[in-house]
C-alpha cells in the first residue's frame, strides 16, 4: 500500500519538477545560459494567475492563460534586458560572461521577487485549480488536480519532444544545442534561435509556475528554492540534456516522496541533496551529460 502511494504521489510532483527544469536545461543547451531568475519567473506566472482570477475577477481559465503569458513575457524581458546585454558587452571578457550572466540573472530574480512581494505581499497563494475533486486510484485517494497536473506536464513534455524531434523548426533548435556554428553555416541566425528558445522557455516556465500555484501554492519566498531545485535537477540529469532532466526530476521527486513516507517528512530534501553531492563527485557530468 505504501509502495503504491509513493508511486502515485511521486508521479505528479516529479512531472512538475521535470517541466520546471526542462526549459531551464533547454536554454542552457542552446545558449549556454544558466538562468538564475528561473524561480522568479515561475512565481511571477503563478502569482499573475492568482491575481487575475482571485483579485481582478477573470475566470480561472483566463487567469491561467494570463499567468502563462506573464511567464512568456518575463522570459523575453529577462533575455533582452539582462542576458543579451551581458553577452553583447565588449567590456566583459569572454571567460567571465558565465559569472556575469549568473550574477545578473540572480539580481534580476531578486528584483522580480521584491516586486511581487511589494504588490502582492509575501503570503503564499494558491491558484484556483481548473479541476477539483478526488478519485480513487488503486485504493489511493488522489485529487483530480494532481492527475490534471501530471497530465498537463506530460502533454507539454510530449509536445516539446514532438516539436524538437519532429517539427522542422524544432529540429533547428535541437541542432543548435548540439552545434551552434553548424546551424549558422546552414543559414540560421543564432540571434533568432535564442529568441525562439527563450520564448519556449518562458511558456514552459509559465505553465510550470501556474500548475505549481494550483497544485502546491507559491509565495515570493519560493523563488530561491525553485531556482535551486531546477538547477539541481538539471545538473543531476546532465546540463543541456532534456532526457537527463526528465530522469533526474523523477529520481529527485521519488526520492523526496519516499523519504517523506519511509523516513520522515522532516528529512525530505536531505537525501536528494546528498545524492547530488555524490553524483557531482563520482560522475560530474550528471546522468546523461557529456563533457
Amino acid at each position, binding site marked *: 500500500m505504501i509502495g503504491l502511494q509513493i508511486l502515485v504521489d511521486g508521479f505528479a510532483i516529479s512531472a512538475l519538477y521535470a517541466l520546471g527544469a526542462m526549459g531551464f536545461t533547454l536554454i542552457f543547451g542552446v545558449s549556454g545560459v*544558466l538562468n538564475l531568475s528561473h524561480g522568479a519567473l515561475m512565481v511571477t506566472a503563478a502569482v499573475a494567475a492568482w491575481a487575475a482570477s482571485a483579485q481582478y475577477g477573470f475566470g480561472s481559465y483566463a487567469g491561467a492563460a494570463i499567468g502563462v503569458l506573464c511567464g512568456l513575457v518575463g522570459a523575453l524581458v529577462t533575455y533582452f534586458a*539582462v542576458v543579451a*546585454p*551581458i553577452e553583447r*558587452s565588449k*567590456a*566583459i571578457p569572454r571567460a*567571465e560572461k*558565465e*559569472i*556575469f550572466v*549568473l*550574477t*545578473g540573472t*540572480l*539580481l*534580476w530574480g*531578486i*528584483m522580480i521577487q*521584491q*516586486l511581487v*512581494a*511589494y504588490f502582492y505581499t509575501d503570503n503564499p497563494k494558491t491558484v484556483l485549480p481548473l479541476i477539483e475533486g478526488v478519485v480513487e486510484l488503486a485504493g489511493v485517494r488522489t485529487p483530480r488536480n494532481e492527475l490534471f497536473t501530471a497530465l498537463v506536464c506530460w502533454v507539454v513534455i510530449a509536445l516539446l519532444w514532438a516539436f524538437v524531434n519532429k517539427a522542422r523548426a524544432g529540429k533547428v533548435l535541437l541542432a543548435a544545442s548540439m552545434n551552434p556554428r553548424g546551424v549558422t553555416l546552414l543559414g540560421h541566425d543564432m540571434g533568432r534561435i535564442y529568441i525562439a528558445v527563450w520564448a519556449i522557455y518562458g511558456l514552459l516556465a509559465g505553465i510550470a509556475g501556474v500548475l505549481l500555484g494550483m497544485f502546491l501554492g507559491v509565495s515570493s519566498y519560493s523563488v*530561491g528554492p525553485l531556482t*535551486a531545485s531546477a*538547477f*539541481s535537477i538539471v*545538473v543531476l540529469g546532465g*546540463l543541456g540534456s532534456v532526457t537527463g532532466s526528465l530522469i533526474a526530476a523523477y529520481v529527485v521527486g521519488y526520492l523526496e516522496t519516499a523519504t517523506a513516507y519511509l523516513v520522515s517528512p*522532516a*528529512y525530505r*530534501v*536531505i537525501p536528494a*541533496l*546528498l545524492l*547530488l*553531492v555524490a553524483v*557531482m*563527485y563520482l560522475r*560530474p557530468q550528471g546522468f546523461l551529460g557529456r563533457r
Partner: protein
Amino acid sequence: MTFPLRGLLLILPLLVVAALLPLGVSGYILGLLTVAYYFAVFSMAWDLLFGFAGEVNFGPTFLIGLGAYGAGILNNRYGIDIPLCLLAGTLLAVVGGLALAVPALKLSGPYFGLVTLVAVLLLQNLIVVFSDLTGGEIGLTVPDVISIDADTNYWIALGFMAVSGLILTAIARSPAGLILQAAGQDPVVAGALGFNVAKHKIAAFAVSAAFSGLAGGLIVFYMGTASVGTLIDTAVGVQIIIAAVLGGRRTIVGGALGAVFLIAAGEILRPLGSLSTFVVSAAALAVILFVPTGLLGLASLRRAS
C-alpha cells in the same frame, strides 16, 4: 609593484578617518558600520577565491555558517571562552573549506557552483534538523558577547577588517599569490610551469575559509546571536557576492568597499521600505551591465586614461 604602496597611501587616510568616527558619529551608525566591516571581510575572503583562485563559490555562507555556529554552539552549550570558541569555529570553517576544495579541483563552472550551493542548503537543513543543538530556525543565542560598548565593537570590527584586508592583499600580491592567480587563470599553463595547481588552490580555500569563519564567529559574539536568516541563507551569500562584484573583482579591497556601499545604500534607502532591496539589486545589476569592472575598476580606469 609600486601599486600596493600607492594603494596603501590611499587607504590609510580612509582608515584613520574610519577609526576616528566614534568621536563624532552616533552609536547607531557605528553599529551599522560594524556589521558592514564584518561583511567586508566575507566579501574579501570570497574575492580571494573568485578573483585569484578562479573559483566561483556560491556558498560563502557555508564557510561563514560553520565558523559562526561552531563558535556559537561551543559558547552556548559548554560556556567555553570566546577566544577558544572563535578558534574552534575558524578551524571548523577551514575543514569545510577543504571539503569544498576537493570538488573544486575536479569540477568547473556551474558544476562547482552547484556543489557550493548544495553545501549551503545542506547546512541549512542540518541546522533545522538538529535544532536542539543549533536553535533551529529561531537561532542560537550566545550568553557572552565581546563587548556591549558600540565604540569598542566598532574598533574591533574595523581593526579586524583592516588586518584581514592587509593579510589578504599581501597574500594576493605575494609571489605565492602570483602563482595562485596563474593557477586560477590558466591551470594548464601553471602546471606546465611546474606549479602544483591543486596545492595552491587548496591553500586558497583554507585561507578564505579561515577568514570567513573567524568573521562569522566574531559577528556572532557581536550580535549575541546566530541564525540561518542572518548568516547562512543564500540571500546573504548573494549579498556577499554582489558586494565583491560591485566593488571590483580581484582587488580584495573592492569587496570591502562594496560591502560598506551596500549597507550604506540599504540604510539610505530605508524610507523606501521593502522596495529598498529592489532598488539596491537594480543598482547592482546596472553596475554589472554598464561598469563590469566595479567601483574600484572604474577608479583605476580613470587613472589609466
